[in-house]
């Protein structure tokens, strides 16, 4: 892929090509400027910065704080939702965004393979998402002059971020380099590298990627701290908060224990469900032949699907404040939708989604070893938290009458990211309002494949970061001279149900009966959230033993699904490891 030039707002920007290489050095000495906070939403995006006294959310020229996340491909002009087409005469309307010429929902597509069900579901979007179902990147393209032109989620995100960066620089009147970005809890480490790459392409250095609810937790810690200082109560008692965040693409839950401006993340859980799924459920409900009607993206079908999307989206929004809503839309080709939707029908259609929300809330409480009675405050954030059923569900599970009032549903995450940006940039505030800290926890189990196709978690989820854990393994064959260390991340019991992050071999294992060597695999997550895996033979010892291997993960660039299967086919059980029974350790 070559270098891509794009003309935006009278200026010429350069986006580096989307090829291999990863983000830049995370541990570089600090830069004088304060890192900005960015919340890239599936649907909307916002940016905030510490202005020296408080967090300021920036508005675009259309006076919006929440800017629609998309990039429009038109002729040779690229423009993103930050400016929304700048000039009044070519301002983008929602129907332009749904015309096939714009790519959106990047956050759902980034870092996913074409076997992923989220990618499969994205075929119901107006732009082109083509899959081969073999575990490689999907092919994504936007309609430019009646032709599909290919791009990648990283590239689209980079273009968007460039426009966002320009907005901030125009506002602050100086160049911006560092950023703290919020990400969904369910993002794999591989997806995180994609975000870092997109940022690098846009000339932004990622100071930190923060799970969205933990950014909200930081804002909460600040508010609690200020309240206490106001009341003159010292560091005060610990408060437990549950944060539920559901946007268009993802749903996250965090439980945090806050005291003295320190927010300790007790547990995190998340999944890839959100407003997009609700929207698609309703569209399929009101148009039962949705998939056959829209099979093959011709121009009139794209236009028709756009109409249905707008009408359905609008109905869902209205339903938050109304008993019933009507959806009336002429889809062309003799197909009309005329439907009255009430709450019970809406809830029935989206039953599976609510069930998933319930599951991750319960999971999070269980992992935090807390019961609903322990919770002091419940925070509801993200666009979907406006849905009455979601509100009652979360509050019900937490046994609370009302949710925490002091935060803005749509602005809390970006405000938290901006706070973190200021703290991480070394900014201090005389009034003590930046005297804060978030102690993060790992959102997913990290481990390796062992005991056949099982997953042995070495760093269990919700371990405080920085973390270092190790585990002993042994060979499964007599005289086995090599062992494959396949590193996975996720919640599945079988290795294949998790994200493959990378793999390497340990070679030169001494020829002894199976089960008699000890191989130590150590995982280390440092303060910058970098994962390293160390592995080697620890028993027997001596000069005939090969040196340890250290690998920074993820090493994979593409095609997880493909790799896992290829490894299994190529090596079978010959390089397998088994977990050694644990010795009692504190």
């Amino acid at each position, binding site marked *: 892929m070559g270098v891509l030039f794009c003309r935006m707002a009278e200026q010429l920007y350069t986006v580096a090509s989307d090829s291999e290489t990863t983000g830049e050095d995370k541990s570089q000495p600090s830069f004088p400027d304060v890192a900005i906070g960015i919340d890239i939403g599936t649907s909307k995006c916002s940016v905030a910065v510490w202005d020296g006294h408080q967090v300021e959310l920036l508005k675009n020229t259309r006076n919006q704080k929440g800017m629609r996340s998309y990039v429009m491909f038109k002729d040779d002009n690229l423009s993103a939702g930050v400016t929304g087409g700048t000039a009044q005469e070519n301002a983008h309307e929602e129907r332009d965004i749904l015309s096939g010429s714009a790519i959106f929902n990047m956050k759902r597509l980034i870092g996913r393979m074409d076997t992923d069900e989220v990618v499969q579901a994205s075929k119901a979007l107006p732009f082109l998402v083509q899959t081969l179902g073999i575990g490689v990147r999907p092919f994504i393209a936007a309609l430019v002059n009646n032709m599909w032109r290919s791009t990648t989620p990283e590239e689209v995100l980079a273009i968007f971020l460039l426009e966002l960066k320009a907005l901030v620089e125009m506002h602050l009147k100086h160049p911006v380099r560092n950023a703290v970005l919020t990400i969904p809890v369910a993002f794999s480490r591989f997806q995180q590298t994609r975000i870092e790459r997109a940022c690098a392409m846009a000339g932004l250095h990622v100071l930190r990627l923060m799970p969205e609810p933990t950014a909200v937790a930081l804002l909460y810690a600040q508010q609690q701290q200020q309240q206490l200082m106001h009341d003159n109560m010292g560091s005060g008692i610990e408060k437990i908060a549950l944060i539920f965040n559901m946007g268009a693409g993802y749903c996250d839950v965090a439980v945090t224990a806050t005291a003295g401006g320190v927010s300790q993340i007790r547990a995190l859980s998340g999944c890839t469900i959100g407003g997009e799924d609700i929207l698609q459920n309703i569209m399929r409900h009101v148009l039962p032949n949705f998939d056959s009607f829209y099979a093959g993206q011709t121009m009139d079908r794209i236009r028709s699907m756009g109409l249905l999307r707008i009408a359905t989206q609008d109905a869902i929004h209205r339903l938050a404040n109304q008993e019933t809503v009507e959806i009336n839309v002429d889809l062309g080709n003799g197909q009309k939708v005329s439907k009255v939707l009430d709450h019970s029908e809406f809830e029935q259609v989206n039953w599976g989604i609510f069930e998933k929300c319930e599951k991750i809330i319960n999971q999070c409480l269980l992992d935090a070893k807390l019961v609903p009675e322990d919770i002091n405050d419940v925070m509801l954030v993200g666009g979907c938290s406006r849905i009455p059923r979601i509100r009652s569900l979360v509050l019900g599970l937490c046994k609370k009458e009302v949710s925490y009032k002091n935060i803005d549903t749509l602005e809390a995450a970006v405000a938290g990211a901006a706070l973190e940006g200021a703290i991480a940039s070394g900014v201090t505030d005389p009034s003590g309002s930046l005297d804060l*800290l978030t102690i993060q926890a790992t959102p997913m189990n990290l481990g390796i494949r062992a005991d056949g196709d099982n997953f042995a978690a070495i760093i269990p989820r919700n371990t405080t970061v920085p973390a270092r854990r190790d585990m002993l393994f042994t060979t499964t064959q007599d005289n086995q001279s090599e062992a494959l260390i396949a590193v996975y991340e996720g919640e599945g019991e079988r290795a294949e149900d998790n994200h493959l992050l990378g793999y390497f071999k340990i070679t030169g294992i001494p020829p002894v009966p199976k089960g008699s060597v000890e191989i*130590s695999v150590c995982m280390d997550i440092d303060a910058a959230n970098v994962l390293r895996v160390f592995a080697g033979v*620890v028993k027997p010892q001596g000069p005939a033993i090969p040196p340890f291997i250290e690998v920074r993960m993820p090493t994979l660039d593409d095609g997880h699904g493909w790799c896992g299967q290829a490894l299994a086919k190529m090596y079978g059980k010959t390089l397998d490891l088994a977990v050694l029974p644990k010795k009692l*350790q504190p």
Partner: protein
Amino acid sequence: MWRRGAGLLRPHLAAASVGRRVRRPPAPLVPAVPSSTASSSCRQILGIFRCSIGAPSRCLSNQAGGGGGACWSCGATGAFLSCGSCGSVQPVDPAVDYFQIFGLNREYNIKDNNLEGRYKEWQKKLHPDLVHSKSEKERAYAAEQSALVIDAYRTLSKPLSRALYLLKLEGIHVDEEKTINDPELLMEMMEIREAVNDASDSQTLEKIQSQVKKKLETWSRSFQDAFDKKDFDRAIEATQRMRYYERAVEETVKKL
């Protein structure tokens, strides 16, 4: 445009060399400890092990250290983990044990329920996120100290890990692989497991759970008694019992 290639390796190497530089004194190897644990062996080999975690029995036994030394940055005395006068994070002192970090006596029954509060106070002084703008050296100290405080908190906050740590400080390692040869205990564990499996409602499970928790408490008291009398064989037995009952409680929690 962004840099590529070379940038990848640099931070990596820098981090590794920092890790080695701050480690002082040179890590003592601990082959003397029977059945050296995975963690200590791994750390020895990697050459980045945190002395106070890896080999407490060697480092701690005869040293009265840990009261705080002179700050490397401003020279003020009494710097403990971080300097009281200039706030600089200090290098890890292998003579400091987990109890000292929390200002506690080295005993099982810690009469303190504000462990988390103190843990957070330390993190506000030591956490690597807060020393971003400091020197590379101090950032490395912060990473080590912060991790040490996390381990200390994790270890002391739970009775079983606290008990095992106390034994470790006495130079005793508990081997979990040791098979249960007490037929009575074996029977009991099987019975509990069956009862948990058969339990069909949460009430029954809660009842089992409270029974097991009671036993856990009994053995916890038994540990304290044995440990105070330096009857380490009995103390080890108590930790093993505690581990079994803890697992049983976990099983009930999973089902609840």
